[in-house]
């Protein structure tokens, strides 16, 4: 069982959350090129190691936040509200 640290509710069981994936991809401008849009929609760094990702506390406060987690060891490193880096 993973314990996901919600910035508002603290550590809770993973079953309370919904996962949405890579939080580093940024939506391009409408005027940006097709290849930028292709990258945004489809390609991912997909690292083996630290990954910044979106989680939603569906069964709790229902807020979105970012988690830093290691995809190889499943170690959860940190979490933060959805601020811009």
């Amino acid at each position, binding site marked *: *069982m*993973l314990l996901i640290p919600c910035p508002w509710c603290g550590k809770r*069981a*993973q*079953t309370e959350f919904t*996962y*949405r*994936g*890579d939080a580093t991809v940024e939506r391009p401008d409408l005027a940006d090129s*097709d*290849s930028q849009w*292709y*990258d945004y*929609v*489809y*390609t*991912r*760094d*997909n*690292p*083996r190691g630290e*990954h910044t*990702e979106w989680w939603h506390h569906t069964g709790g406060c229902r807020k979105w936040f970012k988690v830093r*987690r290691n*995809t*190889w*060891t*499943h170690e959860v490193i940190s979490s933060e509200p959805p601020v811009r880096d």
Partner: protein
Amino acid sequence: MAKSPFKRYSGFSLLRNALSNHRRWPRAWRDPEPRKSYDVIIVGAGGHGLATAYYLAKLHGVKNIAVLEKGWLGGGNTGRNTTIVRSNYMLDGNANFYEHSLKLWEGLSKELNYNVMFSQRGVLNLAHSDSEMESFAIRGNAMRLNGIDAELLLPDQIRQMVPHLDCSQSTRYPIFGGLLQERGGTARHDAVAWGYARGADALGVDIIQNCEVSGIRVKDNRVVGVDTNRGSIDAPKVGLAVAGNSGRLAAMAGLKLPIESHVLQAMVTEPLKPIIHTVVTSGASHVYINQTDKGEVLFGGDLDLYNSYAQRGNLPRIEYVVQSVLTLFPCLRRVRLMRTWGGVMDMSMDGSPIIGKLPIDGMYFNGGWCYGGFKATPGSGWCFAHTIANDEPHELNKALSLERFETGALLDEKGSGAFAFSH
């Protein structure tokens, strides 16, 4: 080139070796030292990499092939899957490819002189609502139009076919019917890796285990070779067939793929007498169940649903999958689980695989297999070999190109969108 003699397996060889107490069976494949260069390097000795090497040597006359494997051959997803083989797809780009693969399965034991225990026990998808029955009718008709067998079943027929299934109205997801592909079934996963390895080795392919690729050398947008923990190896053509490690290998060549790695778990119960004679799947809670020849009930469900490179998963998914199995087969309630394990899956953004060229000359990619690459093994190797040998895809894998994500010609069977974990 040191060619190992193809020692055929037969009733006669079994008898002869029995007389010497099975102490004189020859090695099934060599354990060669890597050479300085090859004509083709395949990275990854799973079923797909080994099948590719086999067909490259057998059908395209390519000599000097190496398959590089970081661990032991067949130790990746090939040795971790629930062994279901089928071709029940709706979209032409998938259907024709998987059907070609299924046809190769039908002759595979003979082709390889190796019993892959392919058992066409049928694959039954259960429907739990009227609308699901309708979508099954659509898919079944699409399959028939492509010359693939499909049969829509009513609850009575299903009750007869799978007597232990809870077909009552009081169950959590009552059964409205199903779609059956009779020619689908299961195969012995390890035997597929071993059979292709033995066949490829006999054709002169060097299978090099404990050889991890750590770099890909590219000059003027053309691949020249790879770096490994056993030295650098040159080759004008490099094919990747590394499943969950696709992203890492692509990154070595400076590329990004429409793929994420996720862990998928499977599990078996203690062995029972035969009670489930076909493969049963249900989309209501997403489970797929069959009984192995050893008697274990083998099943799997959804991904753990977060990016992962760990070949192990977490208990909540196991609990959910077990609950789903028990709603369908309440009679298994007192049976004990014996083992659970996980594999790192190459989840593509439209749920369909990629077999094709990469934007670097001489580099080819095979991956994005999601939940269903085991059944593709023969067809995947066959098409990938053609693509590498001719530097262009075969008609059967044209639609499976990497470019489809840029051009918009996606193959999203369920129309579930660009989330790797939703397929």
